[in-house]
């Protein structure tokens, strides 16, 4: 039977100030750790929810993103006539050919130019994206130079309100509506008529073809049909997977950055915990001698002090997570490195991140607490008792 856990946590409560300060140091580290993971997760969630699992996206083989992709008109018509594609109420195929270009717009906050995505849409583009809803104004008329902007564009860039005129592609475009695509990448886009965009930018090829499949299971046959067709040099993705892939590089970058930063910071926090625990051991030498005399073994003493250190770090972890949880209420905007366009997303706290952060706290507690706990367990009984 070990030394009771109450012994460990009550000692933390007894020296309240030291405990709070040490845990505070650890909480900062856990905060940074959790926040970067939340950022990466938020980015991933935003991009994944941009897509629909029953939609397939076709890009030119080998292109990293919509912007780089190009699909000839003749190839596009082969793609949109596949039998796996659902039929719209009007009897035509549920597919859209879209062109995606980047333009520079001044940011509302800094006035600096940032990239924004222009999506030249097709008749079925909206029907394929049920998450896109008009927030204000109206949809652009087909064949006109009217545009609608995502809510994050309206918020983040100047000159993007209803009635404003944007200049790109050597023409003027009037903003007639603002749409809300929730927490997805579309909310950071400007949508215009596809043919008009192609004409203005002198483009002859589409960027992508989006197809709404009959059902979830039809995807494999669709992919095989497209990728096996010798006339096409195309690659298909489920739309969800396609957008998730876009987030991978950025999410990985954030994770690597966050984890390496926190490993460096955690050294400081662990040294803090170590100093605290060393002084705890030094102040309780006679107590340790007493417990050993009563018959508690070295391992019980080791466990008691390790438990104290782990309680301390868990307290720090909980404080850090609590602070990080507040970030859930903030929206963050950054450049998506894959498309080099502006993307707004939220910090997302998940169960996995909570577990990872607490696990990281325990790790710091064990590592920082081990040397003092070992010292405590190695004391000689008689010498420890003599310090009374």
């Amino acid at each position, binding site marked *: *039977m*070990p*030394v*009771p856990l*109450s*012994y460990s946590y*009550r*000692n933390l*409560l*007894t020296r309240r100030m030291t405990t709070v300060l040490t845990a505070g140091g650890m909480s900062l580290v856990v905060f940074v750790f959790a926040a970067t993971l939340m950022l990466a997760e938020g980015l991933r969630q935003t991009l994944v929810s941009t897509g629909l699992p029953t939609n397939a996206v076709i890009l030119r083989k080998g292109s990293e993103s919509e912007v780089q992709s190009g699909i000839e008109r003749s190839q596009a018509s082969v793609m949109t006539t596949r039998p796996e594609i659902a039929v719209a109420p009007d009897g035509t195929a549920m597919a859209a050919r879209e062109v995606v270009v980047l333009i520079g717009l001044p940011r509302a906050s800094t006035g600096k130019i940032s990239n924004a995505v222009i999506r030249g849409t097709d008749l079925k583009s909206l029907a394929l994206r049920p998450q896109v809803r008009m927030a204000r104004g109206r949809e652009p008329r087909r064949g006109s130079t009217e545009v609608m902007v995502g809510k994050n564009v309206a918020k983040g860039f100047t000159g993007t309100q209803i009635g404003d005129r944007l200049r790109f592609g050597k023409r003027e475009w009037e903003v007639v509506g603002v749409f809300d695509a929730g927490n997805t990448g579309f909310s950071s886009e400007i949508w215009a008529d596809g043919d008009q965009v192609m004409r203005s930018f002198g483009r002859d090829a589409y960027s992508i073809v989006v197809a709404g499949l009959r059902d979830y299971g039809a995807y494999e046959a669709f992919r095989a049909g497209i990728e096996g067709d010798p006339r096409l040099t195309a690659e298909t993705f489920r739309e969800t997977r396609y957008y998730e892939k876009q987030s991978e590089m950025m999410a990985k970058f954030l994770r690597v950055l966050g984890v390496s930063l926190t490993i460096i910071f955690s050294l400081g926090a662990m040294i803090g915990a170590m100093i605290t625990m060393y002084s705890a051991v030094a102040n309780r030498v*006679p*107590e340790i*001698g*007493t*417990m*050993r*005399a*009563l*018959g*508690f*073994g*070295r391992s019980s003493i080791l466990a008691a002090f390790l438990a104290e250190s782990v309680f301390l770090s868990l307290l720090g972890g909980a404080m850090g997570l609590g602070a990080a949880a507040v970030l859930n209420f903030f929206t963050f905007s950054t450049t998506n490195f894959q498309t080099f366009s502006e993307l707004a997303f939220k910090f997302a706290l998940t169960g996995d991140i909570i577990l990872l952060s607490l696990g990281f706290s325990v790790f710091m507690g064990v590592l920082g607490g081990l040397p003092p706990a070992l010292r405590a367990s190695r004391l000689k*009984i*008689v010498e420890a*008792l003599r310090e*009374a």
Partner: protein
Amino acid sequence: MDTPLIRIRDLCKAYTRGDQSIPVLAGITFDIAAGEFLALIGPSGSGKSTLLNLIAGIDTADSGQILVGDTDIVTLSEGELADWRSGHVGFIFQFYNLIPVLTALENVELPLLLTSLTRHERREHAAHALDAVGLSDRLDHRPNQLSGGQQQRVAIARAIVADPDIIVADEPTGDLDRVSAQDILHLMDRLNTELGKTIIMVTHDQRAADAAHRVRSLDKGVLHVSD
């Protein structure tokens, strides 16, 4: 004379300071009977505490034997000694050595955590031991909420709660005023006469030595019988 409970044979212990060996116990041999109340006296530095610690199994001898019943505790490993202590020895210290963050009841319960008793049984035994030392109204007090004499009584309850046969006490009255000291000595006498505990007490205090039934004095590592 009763059958000896503890037989000490040729017990030697020396400390090395630098490359010099300083003998503290130079071949001690004597018996302690079961149920004896023994006081160890002698000048400061004569090795009283060293001898007591060896008998209690918290220090290691250089040579010799300490037979308790049939066990020579000098030959036990550290782990075996810890188990042996928890079953056979109760400790009373000069400065009480209670755990500050635990209540009186929890302090007394501590040795029972090393037994197979259930939580309920442990609480019951601990409350009973505190009752025996007259502190049943102080179960939830922390050590710093108790007087020195009360703390020492909690320590005595802790020493007897696991029902050991031997109780060792190093200057149990050394930090107490006269009235509290008298109180503690009276309690120890009751442990000896009513519960039959074998008590070995190191003391400087003549009154404490008088309370014991037998006195031995140590001088420069050599033992003398004083009665």
